[in-house]
């Protein structure tokens, strides 16, 4: 479990990126932090592995105050995946993934063996192992990034808009892949995005932020969709917009779900007979 207790971060230039944030992130689930640009998502994430140090307040990992830990050692036991993969361009795919085990003192052989296994885990062809990052497609690079994040076999995986730069088809693929991996490994994933769709798809828990790292609402996707806490959330998730306001129409013998623009969103599986209130 990761606990933020009244955490504030002010930068030297006076910007207060996060103000008095308290938050609990449960273990072995995916928590998605979502919010628009500049609202403090990256700052929150980086405070967890001390790439950014909090100005005040306490952050605990399993009840251990991280400010007492050595930052370099801390980072080596937390996975980190970022946008544009952040791979080291001068090292092969294999060596990129093997970086963390090597830093942790594994022998070259062991580290590479581990790296090869991880390529399988993230669904990358072993044939790519000796390529350099620039020789991979954007989607492949992101997979390598995920593999590197998992290399130290960390309990915690921090992901900062990891799929922000790849095209929508590949993005969907990577999202599905992440869900598959998470079913197997059950890490504590903290995932940052500004795409509410992505947040809803991936998050067991979704935290919607407004400016200054203030929490607007947090909860499960369905909860948030059905009961937005306020107008900001409603507008953020698009509940008040034509796109979220759906109706159905039968076409070519199938029930198509359309939004108010007439844009099709999908096909309805069963006609709901009143539906069942899960509450």
């Amino acid at each position, binding site marked *: 479990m990761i606990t933020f207790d009244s955490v504030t971060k002010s930068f030297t230039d006076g910007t207060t990126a996060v103000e008095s944030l308290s938050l609990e992130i449960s273990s072995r689930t995916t928590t998605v932090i979502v919010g628009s640009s500049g609202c403090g998502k990256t700052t929150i994430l980086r405070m967890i592995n001390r*790439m950014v140090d909090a100005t005040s307040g306490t952050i605990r990992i399993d009840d251990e105050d991280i400010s007492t830990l050595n930052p370099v050692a801390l*980072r*080596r036991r937390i996975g980190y995946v970022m946008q544009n*993969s*952040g791979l*080291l*361009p*001068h*090292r092969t795919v294999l060596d990129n993934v093997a970086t963390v085990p090597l830093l942790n003192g594994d022998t070259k052989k062991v580290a590479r063996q581990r790296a090869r296994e991880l390529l399988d885990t993230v669904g990358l062809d072993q044939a790519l192992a000796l390529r350099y990052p620039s*020789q991979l497609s954007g989607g492949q690079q992101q997979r390598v990034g995920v593999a590197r994040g998992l290399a130290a076999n960390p309990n915690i995986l921090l992901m900062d808009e990891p799929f922000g730069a790849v095209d929508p088809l590949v993005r969907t693929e990577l999202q599905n892949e992440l869900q598959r991996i998470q079913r197997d490994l059950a890490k504590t994933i903290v995932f940052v995005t500004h795409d509410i769709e992505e947040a809803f798809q991936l998050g067991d828990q979704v935290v919607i932020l407004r400016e200054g790292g203030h929490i607007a609402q947090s909860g499960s996707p369905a909860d948030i969709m059905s009961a937005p806490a306020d107008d900001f959330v409603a507008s953020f998730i698009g509940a008040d917009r034509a796109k979220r306001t759906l109706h159905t129409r039968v076409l070519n013998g199938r029930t198509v779900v359309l939004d108010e623009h007439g844009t099709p969103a999908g096909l309805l599986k069963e006609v709901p007979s009143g539906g069942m209130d899960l509450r």
Partner: protein
Amino acid sequence: MEWIFANAENIWRLTRDHFALSLPPIVLGLVFSLPLGWLAHRYRWSRGALLTVSGLLYTIPSLPLFVILPVLIGTKILDPINVVIALTLYAVALLLRTVTEAFDSVSPEVRQSSLAVGFSPLQRVTRVELPLALPIVVAGLRVVSASTVSLVSVGSLIGVSSLGDLFTSGFQRDFPTEIMVGIGGTILIAGLLDLLIVLGGRWCTPWMRPARS
């Protein structure tokens, strides 16, 4: 042509001397400018000072520098070391800016990711920043090498012999062939060093080799 054969031994000796004078400033220039360049890249306060001083150094005309150096550092006046030191100063002056820019050019993403992965500060410099700065450094080194090889010949004006001897002697004897041989030799040396640098650079940066696919 005849003259070249008759004087082959002398030309070869001058070529060797020229090469021997060119190499140390290039190597030393690199050795000094890497740490200085990193300093200028890393610390804002040092950047202005270092870049200004190196800019100033570069504007000093070579001849007076060759002449005044022995007076300043107590070397003998015909000592080739004077030329080597002076050219090393120029090499540092030229390279410092390039090295600084090379370190600047390392993408912030890669910096962040190397931080996140848990490299220690020293490891980040030596294993990430330095290798990634190399391609630009190599490009700068090529310029330095060409200009050093060219400047060595000015040493002939103060009695440090190199292919430049052929320029002064050919000039005094109204003998263009001799000068052309000197120019040819200089270009040859420059070409050879350039090749070495390019190959060395390639060897050090295997990730730059394959075309993007």
